[in-house]
C-alpha cells in the first residue's frame, strides 16, 4: 500500500527542513506510522525514495527504535515503562494489573482489537510521574488501578489516533484493512534470535 499524497508531502517538507536528509528519517517514520499505524518494508523503501537515501539506512533507523511498529497492532498503543525509577514506584505491579485486567500478556492485543499492551525497559522520560504509561504517545502518570481502569474504559470505544486527527483523509474502510491485513507487515521474527 503506497503512502498517501499528504504523507509524502510531509516527508518532503521534513527533508527540506534539515541540512541533511538523514535528519528527516525519524519524522518521516512518524508520519508513516501515523498514517498506517505501523511501518512496512514497503513504506521504508518509499521513505528512502522520497528522502533520496539508501533503504538500508531507513531500516537501520526504524529498527533501532522499538517505538516504530512493524506489523498491525491494536487501535491503541499502551506502553508501560519498567525502567528503574518506574520500577521503584511499582511498575511491575502496574504491568501485572494491566495484564490481568485486559486478559492478555505484554506484547499482545486484546480480542476486540482495541489495545496493544507493551512494556519497555526504556525510560520514557517521565520519571517524575512514575509509575507511568504511554498511551498513543501521550503520558498517563502517577498510575493507580482506578486511573488505569478509566484509561482502558476510554480506549475501548475511542478510534485510533490517526483516524481522529485526519477524519476526512482516512476512509474508515481503508483503516480497517490496514490493521487486519498482514500483507506488507514485516515479519521481524524471521531473522531475530531463534
Amino acid at each position, binding site marked *: 500500500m503506497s503512502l498517501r499524497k499528504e504523507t509524502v508531502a510531509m516527508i518532503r517538507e521534513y527533508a527540506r527542513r534539515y541540512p541533511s536528509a538523514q535528519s528527516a528519517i525519524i519524522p518521516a517514520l512518524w508520519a508513516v506510522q501515523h498514517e498506517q499505524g505501523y511501518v512496512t518494508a514497503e513504506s521504508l523503501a518509499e521513505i528512502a525514495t522520497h528522502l533520496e537515501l*539508501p533503504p538500508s539506512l*531507513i531500516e537501520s533507523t526504524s529498527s*533501532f527504535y522499538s517505538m516504530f511498529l512493524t506489523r498491525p497492532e491494536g487501535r491503541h498503543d499502551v506502553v508501560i515503562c519498567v525502567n528503574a525509577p518506574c520500577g521503584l514506584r511499582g511498575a511491575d505491579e502496574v504491568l501485572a494489573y494491566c495484564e490481568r485486567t485486559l486478559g492478555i500478556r505484554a506484547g499482545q492485543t486484546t480480542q476486540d482489537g482495541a489495545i496493544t499492551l507493551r512494556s519497555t525497559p526504556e525510560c520514557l522520560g517521565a520519571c517524575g510521574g512514575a509509575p507511568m504509561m504511554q498511551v498513543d504517545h501521550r503520558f498517563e502518570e502517577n498510575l493507580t488501578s482506578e486511573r488505569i481502569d478509566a484509561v482502558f474504559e476510554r480506549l475501548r470505544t475511542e478510534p485510533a489516533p490517526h483516524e481522529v486527527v485526519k477524519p476526512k483523509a482516512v476512509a474508515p474502510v481503508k483503516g480497517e484493512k490496514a490493521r487486519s491485513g498482514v500483507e506488507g507487515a514485516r515479519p521481524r521474527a524471521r531473522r531475530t534470535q531463534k
Partner: protein
Amino acid sequence: MAVVTDQVTLTVDGQSVTVAKGTLILDAAKKLGIEIPIFCSHPKMEPVAVCRMCLVEVEKMPKLQPACAVYVMDGMVVRTRTEQVQRYQNGVLEFLLANHPLDCPICDKGGECPLQDQTYTYGPGASRYDFPKKHFDKAVPLSDKILLDRERCVLCWRCTRFSAEISGERELALIQRGKDTIIGTFNDQPARSEYQGNWTEICPVGALTSRQYRFISRPWDLDRTATICPGCSMGCNVHADARHNRLGRFQARENLAVDDGWLCDFGRYSFPSFQREGIERPRVRRDGRLEEVSYEEAMAAAAQSLRRAGPATAGWASPAATNEELFLFQRLLREVLATPHLDHGRGRGEAATALEPDDAALPIADLERCDHVLLLGGQAVIDAAPVLHLRLFKSERKGVRVHRVDDARAALEAVPAEAQAVGIVSSLGRKPEVDSLQGKLARKVKGSVRRLLVPDGPNGRGATDLGFGPGRGPGYASLDGKAGRARPDWEAAGVRALYLFEASPLHDFQASGEEREWIQRLETVVLQRPRPSPLDDLAHVILPGRAFVEKAGTVTNMEGRVQRIRPAIDAAVVRDDWKILQGVAQALGADWRYRDPDEVFADLSRAVPAYRADRIGERALWSERA
C-alpha cells in the same frame, strides 16, 4: 622559546615516540612496534570505537581509553600492558565469546581469524558463561557470492562502514539494536554490490565468507603467489592462493598506488574460470581430423603453413598476454612473416586509435589530487575497471567533484574555469574524443588537464605500447607507410592465414558469426590457446599454451605501470607461450635464443626504452626517452 611544530611526543610503555598531531594512539604505538589488539578499527575507515578491544591506560585520564579513537597529545603517557588493561582485554574477549559459537573447526576463517588469534594472545582460557547462547540461522546467503553467519559476528561495523565509507553503496546496515543487533541488507534483499568480496577480507571473524572459498582450505595449506588480477586493466595486485595446484581464491595484496587494498568481485571471483582441467597435447589437422603430435611437430606444421601465407597472415593476440609474449609475437609477425596485420582485443577501436604514448597520463592515485574529475562514459567506464569506482568515491569524500557525463560537450560545461587540476577518465576506445576534449579544457581552465584511459584487458595498455596493432610498431614507432589493417578489415585485406594467440578465458577472441564463416574459409588457422576453445574445430594447428595465472612475465596497467605476474598454478608440460612463439619463429628460420622471459624483456627494453627492468612495479616513463 618553545618552537611550535605539528609534531607531538608521547611515551608508550616507557618508550618515547614523536608523531604528527592527529595521530591515533594506536598508530603511535605501532610506530614503536607495540601491538594493540583491535577489531573494529580499520586504517581506511573512520574510528568508531565500538569493540573496546583496544583499551589502554592513559595517565591523567580516569578511565581506559580506546587507542583506535583517541588522538595523541604532547606529553601523553600511555600504557598498553598493565594489569588493568589485561583485565579489560580478558573481559572484552569473554564478552565477545559469550554468544560466539566457537565453531572454528568448520569455520573458513580458522587459522587467519583475528578473534581466534587475539583470544589466544590476550583472552581468558575459559568462559564462565553457561547460559544458552544466542542462535541464528547458519550461513545465510547475502547474495550469490557471500554467506553471513550472524552467530559469529562481533558487530565491529567494518562491513557496514565499508559499505558506507569505501564503496558508498550503503547496502549493509546494522539492524535493530543492543543484544538484538544484526548485520543485514534492506528487507533481506540479495546484496548487489560489485565489491562484496572485500567484506570477507575485513571481517575480523568468520561471519562473512565467500561461497567460492567455502570449505576449500585452511590458510596454512595454501600456496600463495603474489601476482596481478586477470580481470581488467586496473592491474589490482592479488595473492593467488592455490591448494594442490588448484586455485582456491584471490585475496587483495595492497598496492596503495593501484588498488588501495581492494578488489572487485568480477576480478576476485574470476579464478574458477582459470582452473585447469587437465593437460592437453598439441594437435595438427590431417585429413580433416585433429591428431595429437609433439610440440616440435605442431610448431613445424604451423611454420610450414604460415610460410606459405607470409604477408597474407594476420596475427591476433589477447590483451591478457604478457609484454614479453606480445613483443615476441609482434617480432614473429613483422620480422619473420613480414606481415603488417596485427591486432588485439575485440572489435575496432583501441589498437587503431592509440597512436602515441600516453605521456601525460594521470596516475590512478592522482585522481584524489584533482579538483574535478570527468568520468566520460559514466558507468560503462566503471564496469570496465570496477575498482576505479572505489578510488573515485574516495576522491569524492576528499572533496573532488566527480562529474559523470556521456558526451564531451556536457563534460566541457561541467568544469569551471577556475579548476586547478582536472582529470578525464574514459575508455581507450574514446581516445579521439578525449584528445579534443582535453585540448578544449586546457584552453578553458587555469590548471592542468590530464587523462586516464581504460583499455580492454589486463595488458591492453602493454599491447598498444609494444606495437601490437596495425598502426604503430613497438614504442609507437612509425611504420613508414607500412601500416597493416585492423581485425574487422582482415577479410577485405585478403588475409589467408590467421594466427590466434589466446591467453585468458576472460579476454578471448570471441569470433562473431560472420568472422567464424570467414575463418572457416581460411587456408591456415593456427590456434595457440590455454583452454579448449570454440574455434578448435576451425583450427589446423592447436598449440596448448598457458593461461594468465600460469604465466611469468610482465603486464602494463591502464596508467602505464609495468607489473610482474607469476605462475600461481603449475601447468606442468604445457609449454610456456614465449617458448612456443620462439619455436615457431625458429622453425621459420629465425635465430632466436631467449632463455627466459627476462631476456625477452631486456630486448623489449631496447626497442621500448620506457620499459625498464629496474623499474618494474613503476609506471613506464615515456618522456625520459626524449
